[in-house]
């Protein structure tokens, strides 16, 4: 995004929170927060219910076929699986609110520790991929819109079509072959952790982030292009041209901000996807991320882990939606005033 946009948004933010418009903005944020809380409540009920109806008893699964009834019952007690539904739900939610996510059946360590370790891989990876995707997609989409109907546009549209059609793990393998084996610039997999410094960790995340970002960038560039072309047909662009703006100035100064709403929506959705949906890429690059954790949790009937990670992801999605909603209101004054 051009720097002019950033400073504009800064001044807008200032106006929204510091000026006369502070009340509508707070009101807007408050209503969004309430809907966030209600969504979380609804999600926790659904997750709890789904996990309850999944067949298979974790205790008997863990102890094997030969275990006696008594041992299974004892383990079930131990795992907090006995007691009424309501009791268990309240204990689960209450635990999460105090940071206690329970103990994993299989790993025998607190789930919060497990998740925290994985989050330190998945969150930076998702942010890295999202940043790459945005940085690539916005200028490319703008260029295609400005050159619509001309060879540059056709070229970009063809490339993005390819980017969407080709699965990201194929990109991942291609990247490994080219940039890790033929020219060994980046490691081909594994994650050294953040203790060894930011440099090596980022290097390890680069190829997976690129592989994740390419299809996302293709989608985002197309959204950017069509949103921008849509705004370019608006009357206010004609007004801007009649004021003496060049076509490029009209796009940057008037088209961009108006095209941001659909683009922000897609960016929000992509972040949620990248956080949990990177499982195949995690497999290809041997990254200990959240996707693999949840996959293992499911196969091993480690329901506490599944419940907690899914809840965490839901929380992340809802939080991102909330942030996107706030960003909408910053971009579009009509939303601040509740229209």
């Amino acid at each position, binding site marked *: 995004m051009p720097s002019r946009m950033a400073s504009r948004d800064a001044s807008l933010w200032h106006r929204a929170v510091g000026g006369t418009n502070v009340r509508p903005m707070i009101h807007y944020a408050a209503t969004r927060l309430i809907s966030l809380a209600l969504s979380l409540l609804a999600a926790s009920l659904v997750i709890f219910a789904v996990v309850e109806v999944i067949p298979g008893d974790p205790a008997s699964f863990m102890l094997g076929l030969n275990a006696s009834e008594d041992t299974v019952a004892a383990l079930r007690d131990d795992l907090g699986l006995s007691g009424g539904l309501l009791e268990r739900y309240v204990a689960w939610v209450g635990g999460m609110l105090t940071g206690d996510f329970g103990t994993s059946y299989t790993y025998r360590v607190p789930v919060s520790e497990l998740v925290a370790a994985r989050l330190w891989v998945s969150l930076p990876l998702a942010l890295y991929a999202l940043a790459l995707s945005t940085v690539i997609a916005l200028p490319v989409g703008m260029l295609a819109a400005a050159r619509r109907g001309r060879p540059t546009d056709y070229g970009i549209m063809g490339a993005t079509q390819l980017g969407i059609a080709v699965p990201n793990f194929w990109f991942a393998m291609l990247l490994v072959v080219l940039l890790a084996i033929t020219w060994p610039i980046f490691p081909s997999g594994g994650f050294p952790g953040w203790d060894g410094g930011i440099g090596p960790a980022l290097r390890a995340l680069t190829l997976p982030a690129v592989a994740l970002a390419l299809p996302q960038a293709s989608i985002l560039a197309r959204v950017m292009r069509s949103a921008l072309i849509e705004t370019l047909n608006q*009357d206010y662009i004609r007004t801007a041209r*009649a004021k003496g*703006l060049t076509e490029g100035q009209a796009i940057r100064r*008037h088209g961009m*901000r108006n095209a941001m709403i659909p683009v922000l929506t897609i960016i929000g959705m992509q972040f949620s996807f990248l956080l949990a949906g990177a499982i195949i890429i995690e497999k290809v690059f041997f990254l200990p991320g959240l996707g693999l954790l949840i996959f293992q949790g499911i196969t091993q009937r480690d329901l506490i882990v599944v419940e907690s990670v899914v809840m965490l992801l839901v929380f992340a999605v809802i939080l991102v939606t909330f942030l996107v909603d706030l960003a909408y209101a910053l971009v579009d004054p009509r939303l601040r005033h509740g229209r």
Partner: protein
Amino acid sequence: MITLDQINLSIGGKPILRDVSLRLQAGKTLGIVGESGSGKSMTALSIMRLLPQGAELSGKVTLEERELTALGERQMCAVRGAEVGMIFQEPMTALNPVQSIGDQVAETLLIHGAASRSEAARIARERLARVGLTSDRFPLDRYPHELSGGQRQRVCIALAIALRPKLLIADEPTTALDVTTQAQILGLIRELVREEGMGCLFITHDLAVVAEMADDVAVMKAGQVVERGATDALLHDMQHPYTKALFEASRHCPVRIPQMDEAHLLEVSGAVRDYTLRRQRLFGPRPSFRAVDGVDLRIRRGESLGLVGESGCGKSTLTRAILGLEPLQGGEIRLDGQTVTPDMPADLRRRMQVVFQDPYGSFNPRHKVSRLLSEPFHLLGRPADLDARIGEVLEQVGLSSADADRFPHEFSGGQRQRIAIARALITRPELIVLDEAVSALDVSIRAQILDLLAELQHRHGLTYLFISHDLTVVRAITDRVLVMKAGRIVEQGETEAVFNAPSHPYTRALLEAAPVLPLAAE
């Protein structure tokens, strides 16, 4: 000051303008009149060189010795906004919704490097005050959505004149506005032209507006100027048959044969319609807005009743209630004695039909005319003689039964409005609600549709509720008229009596604001 010499324009090989030559002096207004497709907007865009892709322009445009047609795109950008300002028809969409009005006016100054940021804000403030948007009620950080249509058009004018251009091009600047707002904006433009010594190129389809605004007039038809001259002289001594036809069509009054019954077909008594609004505070009560506030109206069978009022007066809300689309919060509506509600029986619904302003918007573009016309029968069950009835209504509205196999885009605007009328007729209704049904049409087409409506009324004994903001049209086609303001009927009576001697101040204001065609000396 500005001269157009032999302008020819084609877009994608299709000729749009042919040998257009015009001349305008500083401090004067040149009106360009014509119907849609006459090339009047394209003439303006040729001066601005803001033409669509694939346009080929030849001829010379000269602004004070400078040949604009010889300038490159960069140089034209320096001319646009600085030497030539332009305002457009749709004030609602002409401003960027996410930028404050102050920023949008100041941008004209900033883009031409005419002022520093703070200086630009100061001049923007001053120009907005000049167009009537004072700083106490309209601070610079207002956004377009907080303004009405007329106020937005004032902002557009402010940004067009921010650098005191030599030429102001106004392309149908008041067509989308109410009559009283139109009068204010026209007054403002006249004043600016006089005080700033600008030349003004005023484009409109409305002869009455041009008669009020312009010193000289050029009449355009199919890309050519067919007649031009000083406004008074031209309107009193028209030479070209097209000008005469246009003038006649503007004043057209269909011949109507009164055939009213004594019995009332529609009775609305004490109708109240409230809308709930958004909460002001998080858990506050929902405020409500009374759009229709105790309206009484009666229409006799065979009568034609006009309902006039400006946007937001509640006339569309009332219409929806009369059609039984929305429930009332008080009072009642009866059609031939039966109560009208959203869940009324289909047969009662059949007896009233509606024709809207924009037929294109109310037709599914992928359906053939036959399917569009048989739509009302989803409600009533398909009659055995459906095809015969489709052919019959098409012929009644002046189309042919073969048109049933065509799609809406194959018809002109006037023909589409005929299809909309045919769709209303097919259920053999008694009451037809005409909601701005001729407002979007060119004057010559409008005259034909008004004739058609008068003929259909006579032939089928139809009753019309004619809703419009256009007083001339209401006067031409109605027996009685109701004037609505802020949800209430403020005046009603025989149409001629109300128009000749309005008693309510609001009616007087409306009639005074409406531009009137001078009578031609024939």
